[in-house]
């Protein structure tokens, strides 16, 4: 059958078919190898052939009733569009950029929310502390049985001291690390971040409750005159771990605030905007929690002197603070 006998849309297809097939090959190459690894001529052809194909699609929609041709062109142009306009981003320097710039900058930008997180925790601790001295039984209200591990108003001073300085765990290092990471505080941190989306309230409540437990727990020890000892015991990991919870709470609050007060944006848009910093806060909290679990699982068993414990805990805390405040500043 020669060209004259073909109907118009078949001629249209015959003239362009070779270009489409070349575009199909280029799209496959771009998806498999990535645009960065393609020849100059290939990427140039990809862009120009993609534009030709969109034109062909527009014409084919008007003149052709061949379902197979229309389906092919729809799929081909959509695939080529993704290659041309949504290519793979460069991944080099991603981690470095996070640590040196974007994370500390995000921390500084959302200082208000983080401050709110710390405030919730501190208020909770204060309330717990005062309530304990009002009536010892409050301790049992706040503290779940399995978390206190027998340490309470009824425990003897010796047993409290023993749990502070003793080698209380018989498990191996890795097992202890895992248990600590999945211990209470990590779960709280994930919860306060995830629940922040639901209009702030759950995140604030959880952080406050966590503060209550902390306050009551500290009060038990101060009641027995063990103030410095418990401070050292808590400082080793607590400075890092409790800060991580407050930072996670800050991230959650940011999301919740975007949902409650979206301003001029729509709620989904405000959520997306807030998510930019909140996700970095959550990543920072995760890194801090892993560090805290390392400290709790290994360092606390090795260091048994209150002074050293205090220096270790607060020194690491100062390092975190230095990272957040000093890193990634633009030179002016």
């Amino acid at each position: 059958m020669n060209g004259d006998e073909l109907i118009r849309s078949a001629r249209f297809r015959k003239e362009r078919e070779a270009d489409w097939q070349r575009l199909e090959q280029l799209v496959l190459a771009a998806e498999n190898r990535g645009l960065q690894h393609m020849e100059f001529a290939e990427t140039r052809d990809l862009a120009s052939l993609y534009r030709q194909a969109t034109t062909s699609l527009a014409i084919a929609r008007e003149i052709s009733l061949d379902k197979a041709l229309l389906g092919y062109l729809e799929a081909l142009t959509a695939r080529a569009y993704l290659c041309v306009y949504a290519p793979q981003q460069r991944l080099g320097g991603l981690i470095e950029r996070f640590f040196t710039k974007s994370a500390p900058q995000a921390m500084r930008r959302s200082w208000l929310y983080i401050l709110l997180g710390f405030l919730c925790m501190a208020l909770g601790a204060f309330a717990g502390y005062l309530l304990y001295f009002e009536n010892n039984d409050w301790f049992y209200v706040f503290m779940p049985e399995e978390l206190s591990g027998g340490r309470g108003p009824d425990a003897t001073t010796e047993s409290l001291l023993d749990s502070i300085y003793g080698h209380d765990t018989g498990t191996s290092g890795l097992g202890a690390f895992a248990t600590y990471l999945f211990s209470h505080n990590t779960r709280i941190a994930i919860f306060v971040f995830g629940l922040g989306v639901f209009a702030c309230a759950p995140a604030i409540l959880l952080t406050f409750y966590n503060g209550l437990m902390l306050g009551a727990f500290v009060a038990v020890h101060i009641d027995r005159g063990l103030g410095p000892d418990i401070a050292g015991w808590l400082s080793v990991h607590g400075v890092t771990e409790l800060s991580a919870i407050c930072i996670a709470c800050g991230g959650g609050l940011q999301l919740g605030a975007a949902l409650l007060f979206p301003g001029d944006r729509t709620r989904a848009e405000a959520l997306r905007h807030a998510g930019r910093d909140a996700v970095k806060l959550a990543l920072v909290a995760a890194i801090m929690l892993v560090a805290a679990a390392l400290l709790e699982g290994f360092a606390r068993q090795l260091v048994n002197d209150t002074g050293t414990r205090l220096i270790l805990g607060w020194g690491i805390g100062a390092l975190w603070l230095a990272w957040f405040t000093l890193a990634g500043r633009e030179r002016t």
Partner: protein
Amino acid sequence: MLRRWREKRGARPSPDTLMPPEGVPLTLPIAGVGVRLAAQITDIVITSIAAICLLILLLVINLTSPQTIVAVGALLFFLIRVPYYICAELAWNGQTLGKRLMKIKVVSHDGGPLTAHALVLRNMMKEAEVFLPGTLLLTLNAATPAESLISLGWILMALLIPVFNRYRRRLGDMMAGTHVIHLPVPVLLKDLASEAPLPAQNAKKIIFLAHQLDHYGAFELQTLESLLRSQDKITSPAAAKQQQATIEAIVEKIRKKIGYADPVPPADRLRFLRAFYNAQRKHLEQRQLFGDKRENKHYAQSSEEA
């Protein structure tokens, strides 16, 4: 009421279309909840297999004891799972292994490139949306019905959010500004109209007159196209026999409708259909060029109404 609601819905552009800078709307079909669930389950199986292998390795070289096996196992699963989703989607530009298997892909909601930030965010929210209540549900028991119910409700909510929005986005997708599409697969079938006609031994050429081609529209033409394309795929004799009966019925129906007087012998049926397809397509495409678009065989009535 319902009708007005439908009209309002119809006014919005379909979620499947995307307008590129070239100004030609493209089709990127949204992936449904089912296929995404399947991809998710595939990924969970892959990561849990990796975690179990590592756990057995740790047990063999005595790095962990049976008392802490659950905690270590949970930790391993967590430590493999979180980087797996993020790294896989970063490396394959929005596809994990499960998504590659199901031929779906994450794309940015505005059609631009996927940023690392968006991929990290959508996968971290997956942790809060799916895995956290999931593990809670597994660890809780009948002794704590309230907590079980809450986590069950949480999972249900996380699953229902995608069902109730047009782009099938879960919470993490909304926050990251992404949605998931079916990756279209371009398959170029041959053009029926440009194929060489079946060998016709001194049979006369089948010719249709213009008024005979005024009965059908594009829908009927494309249905005929599907039928003719399915000719090559038939293998079993039973199916071939059934196909013969279908073709006979169709040929008779077309003949009656368009008033084609000459009888079509059984050997010529397929040739008749192909010739009719070519002539009908040529005619319809020509009408379309003149601005007379015929959707289906009721085109005459619908144009009167309008």
